[in-house]
């Protein structure tokens, strides 16, 4: 049975955490994710969860404590954003390298400098190579559902997972939320699974060894292979979630893609804006579609190509830049996915929304016009454009 409530993205994630009732949450506040820890600590102090809450003195210590707790066999969650995720950076790799299950509720926010508290994806993208599974959410509902699903994915695959929302746009926007009963969530997540346990004093093990030239390569290759295998398992776990929890999520969402000539590819909340525009344009007979990858890591390259290869032009919307002169993260991922593909639609990157710069329906309409011109022209460059920038 499900209930309808109104919640912000942060409230939705905190609610998912309450229902998961993790053993340990170690966290540190940062805008726009602060509320998640605040709300959760009221759950703790009101006795609504059994969790041991560890209010650390930094994000670095928060995730370090999470590692300790997870290695001690606990079900562990935390939450952060932006500078906080950047401060965790070193330990993100260690979490994944130690194959510890863990879920971070991450609220996407720009990185300094200049300091800015609003949404873009530079923080999450900055940790894309850390070995975490990265899931984007378009709205509170997805944030809530995917937080619960992430716990399962993490414990089934022994990969840490970050579930993201867009700062303020989702984290602070009140919307309709269909919540599960506590029992449903508890029975879905089930008994905690742990790869090993340092609290098992009768079977002592050493975790976090120094591994040199003789074994490091094998261990990292194994981790990489497990990430490759994770792709099929993630698909299965999404299907399993849909079945058990009566939802209808796919790993890549497609809108009007059956006969689309032009496609917009976007992560998170912007996909909703793009979809709205496409609905309007479809009424006018324009063959445009939207592709929204939910999962950025691992990257579902062949699946993306299969969806997109028949269009004439692909407009990639990137809310982050790589500062490499070659555009943003999603664009670079997609471009390399198309390498040696027989069909090569035109593709262009539109970097938008940095530091919370608004992106409107009109802005995306301009993007569509531009990608049409670009694909009709003989030009292949420039294929990166910064949009909604003050002249």
């Amino acid at each position: 049975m499900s209930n309808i409530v109104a919640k912000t993205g942060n409230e939705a994630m905190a609610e998912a955490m309450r229902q998961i009732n993790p053993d340990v949450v170690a966290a540190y506040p940062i805008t726009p994710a602060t509320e998640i820890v605040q709300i959760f600590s009221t759950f703790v102090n009101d006795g609504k969860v059994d969790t041991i809450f560890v209010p650390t003195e930094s994000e670095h210590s928060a995730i370090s404590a999470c590692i300790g707790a997870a290695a001690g066999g606990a079900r562990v969650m935390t939450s952060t954003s932006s500078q906080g995720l950047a401060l965790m950076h070193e330990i993100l790799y260690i979490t994944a390298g130690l194959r510890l299950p863990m879920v971070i509720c991450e609220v996407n926010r720009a990185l300094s400098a200049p300091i800015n508290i609003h949404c873009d994806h530079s923080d999450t993208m900055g940790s894309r190579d850390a070995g975490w599974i990265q899931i984007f959410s378009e709205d509170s509902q997805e944030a809530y559902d995917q937080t619960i699903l992430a716990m399962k994915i993490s414990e089934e695959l022994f990969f840490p997972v970050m579930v993201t929302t867009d700062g303020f746009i989702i984290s602070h926007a009140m919307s309709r939320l269909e919540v599960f009963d506590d029992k449903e969530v508890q029975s879905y997540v089930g008994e905690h699974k742990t790869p090993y346990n340092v609290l098992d004093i009768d079977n002592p093990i050493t975790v976090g060894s120094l591994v040199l030239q003789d074994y490091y390569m094998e261990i990292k290759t194994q981790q990489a292979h497990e990430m490759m295998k994770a792709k099929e398992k993630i698909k299965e776990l999404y299907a399993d979630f849909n079945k058990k929890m009566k939802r209808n999520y796919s790993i890549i969402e497609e809108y009007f893609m059956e006969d689309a000539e032009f496609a917009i590819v976007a992560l998170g909340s912007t996909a909703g804006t793009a979809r709205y525009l496409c609905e309007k344009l479809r009424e006018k007979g324009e063959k445009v579609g939207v592709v929204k990858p939910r999962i950025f890591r691992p990257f579902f390259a062949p699946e993306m190509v299969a969806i997109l290869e028949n269009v004439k032009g692909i407009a990639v919307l990137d809310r982050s830049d790589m500062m490499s002169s070659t555009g943003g993260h999603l664009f670079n991922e997609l471009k390399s996915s198309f390498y040696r593909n027989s069909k090569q639609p035109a593709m262009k990157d539109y970097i938008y929304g940095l530091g919370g710069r608004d992106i409107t329906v009109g802005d995306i309409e301009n993007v569509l016009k531009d990608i049409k011109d670009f694909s009709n022209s003989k030009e292949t460059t420039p294929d990166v454009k910064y949009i909604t920038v003050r002249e």
Partner: protein
Amino acid sequence: MTTIKDLANKGNLFTQGHRACAGCGGTVILRLLMAAAGKDTVVVGATGCMEVVSTIYPYTAWNVPFLHNAFENSAATASGVESAYRALLKRKKTDKKINFIAFGGDGGTYDIGIQSLSGAMERGHNLLYVCYDNGAYMNTGIQRSSATPMGSSTTTSPAGSVVKGKMQNRKDLTEIMVAHNLKYAAQASLSNWSDFVSKVEKALAVDGPTFINVLSPCPLGWGYDTSLSIELSRLAVETHFWPVYEYEDGKYKINIKPKQVKPLEDFLFKQARFKHLKNEPELVEEIKKSVEEKWNCLLQKESSCK
């Protein structure tokens, strides 16, 4: 009092076969620490010599659960393990009594790890933190730390023709720990092994965070013959360079008061890191002055808290 025989009978929880240098003080500290703590102990170690020499994959010197995370976060990591344990207790999934110990070198403790340590101590986790203070970053090749004694030559504070080694005084970490309102904080020296062992036992009996700072002679970093490690530990105590004391329930106690205080030179000039000071009598005087000031201050604290 625990005898050597008692300790030997506790089994090898930190075993032979590790890759430490001959004469390494750190490994002796770990061996005594584990003998005192016993097998129902989980250890978290910071990056540094002791972690490196004891866990080269696929081998380990640890016969208790051992977790290494990174350089600056052994205290935070241990606070997480201890929290997992409390979660188990709360859910009634265990009734075992487990000790939690985190350790780090002076670099991992005084410097890069001080924030993580301070946070874990302030939060009141039930864990013992042990710093093995060898007075520099030995693992990366003897760079200065905030525990490096004044005048000491390290690879980042070399004794040059103008600047004669490290020009700053040591940070007093033990007192910083005392300022965290710990129920128990202490300094120990390998020369007084039974004192160290009983300090570990005391600390582990406390419900709450505790701290022990142990001087850790390093033949390579300090520049002395590998046979002299314990001798140097003793000289450090007998010259007042390294006071052996404890802070327990608000009271100070200096555990070892040398009957005959030896001149600091006896400690300094057995080590290559100070040998350039032979030509720097003024600097030696300054170092002596600060060592004596510390000692007197400690005496005062001891008498005023009685």
